[in-house]
């Protein structure tokens, strides 16, 4: 209840501070990132594994949705296609790491992400290659979602559904299996939990949520290019979970607020600097890295326990 009130307060505050259209547009991104963050919360916080290439799942969702809409498919059904594609890729990406667990998952998801990124550039006929691809606005029952308010409403609805689904999953047999594997894999196996299966499903759910977020992101941004989904995105999502807290689902929402707000804050800070002080692209990297390092050094075990 308290977090719901804080959220409403946050929405009101954002709209007041940034203006209606811009504020709601940013909040739509917050809700979209939060959906992707939920997937990582399940992988990292619930089942205790690591994904170093989560950007690939967003990429697959975004490009599937773009392709589906371009072929004339209804956008809402496209979300389901993206969801299925993400789940499949998540399960596949986790297969090579299954025998080792832990860091091996990080390595296999990293490899899959780098392969996906290269494939997006290489198969330019389908994906527009490095020059990118434009995505038409989402249409729901003949009604185009272009207004920031509507975009926010759609993202918030998807986020709410994802939160409810995740909560139900966590309270199910599968959720208990994830936590058992996270806390002690040997003991979990001895108690009859199929650890390999639980980890596979964690990556499938995580990949599906990532792809769902990617599909929404494709519509909100209206333009896709492979470098948006590179290693940097994967690490931003990891930072999102680290800041928000991997141990609870709402952590993804708070982390998403920080991840969307941070580049804005850095841009504001940059504008206060006199012109020509230094190369701006470099300063932004330094600022982002500095925040990341400061946060990790301040609370090495995660901001929220």
């Amino acid at each position, binding site marked *: 209840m308290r977090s719901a009130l804080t959220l409403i307060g946050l929405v009101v505050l954002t709209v007041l501070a940034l203006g209606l259209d811009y504020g709601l547009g940013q909040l739509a991104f917050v809700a979209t990132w939060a959906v992707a963050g939920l997937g990582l919360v399940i992988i990292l916080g619930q089942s205790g594994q690591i994904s170093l290439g989560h950007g690939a799942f967003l990429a697959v969702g975004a490009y599937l949705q773009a392709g589906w809409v371009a072929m004339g498919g209804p956008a809402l059904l496209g979300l389901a296609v993206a969801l299925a594609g993400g789940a499949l890729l998540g399960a596949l990406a986790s297969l090579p790491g299954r025998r080792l667990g832990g860091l091996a998952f990080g390595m296999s998801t990293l490899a899959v992400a780098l392969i996906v990124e290269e494939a997006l550039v290489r198969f330019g006929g389908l994906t527009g290659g490095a020059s990118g691809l434009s995505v038409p606005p989402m249409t729901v029952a003949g009604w185009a979602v272009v207004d920031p308010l509507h975009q926010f409403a759609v993202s918030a609805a998807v986020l709410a559904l994802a939160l409810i689904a995740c909560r139900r999953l966590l309270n199910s047999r599968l959720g208990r299996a994830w936590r058992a594997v996270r806390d002690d894999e040997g003991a979990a196996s001895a108690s009859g939990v199929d650890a390999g299966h639980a980890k596979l499903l964690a990556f499938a759910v995580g990949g599906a949520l990532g792809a769902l977020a990617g599909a929404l992101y494709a519509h909100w941004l209206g333009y896709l290019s492979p470098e948006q989904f590179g290693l940097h995105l994967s690490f931003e999502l990891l930072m999102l979970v680290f800041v928000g807290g991997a141990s609870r689902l709402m952590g993804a929402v708070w982390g998403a607020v920080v991840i969307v707000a941070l580049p804005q804050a850095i841009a504001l800070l940059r504008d206060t600097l006199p012109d020509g002080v230094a190369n701006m692209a470099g300063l932004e990297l330094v600022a982002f*890295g500095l925040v990341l390092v400061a946060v990790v050094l301040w609370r090495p075990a995660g901001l929220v326990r």
Partner: protein
Amino acid sequence: MILQILLSGIATGCIYGLVALSFVLVYKATEAVSFMQGELLMVGAFAAVALTAAAGWPVWLAVAVAVVGMALAGALVERLALRRAMGQPHLTAVLLTFGLGLMLRGGVTTVPAATHSAHQLPLPGLMGQVEVGTLTVSLAHLGVIAATVLSCAALAAFFRFSRAGLALRACSENPRIAAMMGVSTSGMHTLAWALGAALAALAGILMAPVTFVHPAMGVVALKAFPAAVIGGMHSLSGALAGGVFIGVAEALAGRYLPEGANHVTAYVLMLVALLCFPRGLFAGRAT
């Protein structure tokens, strides 16, 4: 023709291998998964370029100072920051090193001279080519291979014959028992990061005659992960061999497979290695 491809593959593979070596060295000793080896490599190469081009030092002195300087920097960063990630889940070290890497890359990018022109490190004796029979051999490639062999021999000797090397090995095997035997484990973590940073810098300097020195050259370190995985994640010689293996496989893929396949060869090999050889391709004996 095939010999030439193999040779250039081995030379590239030596670079991958050196970076993988630095990664595995750090990973074994401190359990930290480092995403900043590429940036350490880039900064090392830039340090050597700056000392020769801007300060006018002789090349070999600049190279030596750059490598030693990066070792000190690695030790310093371990003392100040990376130590905090000890004993935490992998995510902490991953994010911390990635953030430090961003700071290094951003810092170099802010220097206008670093981004406005491509730099080359004029290592004497490593420019040009020689003809051996029908074979045209680039001296830079030979130099990379020779330098890798020499530095690995030096590293092997260090691990085998010096007290510090033995202590570092003991600490990687079992930190608790090593501590009981009087090894300062925290000192060993610092030493591991210093060695790791120095090796990465060396790889960057060796890369300089083959490619140009630029702020994004650190992406080459992504190939260190496949090399380390193929080498079994815990073996120094395995990491080096994995690097050479990947370099050769990439060179062959670039020649015989459709365009673009060589960009993903390393990662496909990594997935195959994880699936079929989880203890590494060269894991002969159980440890």
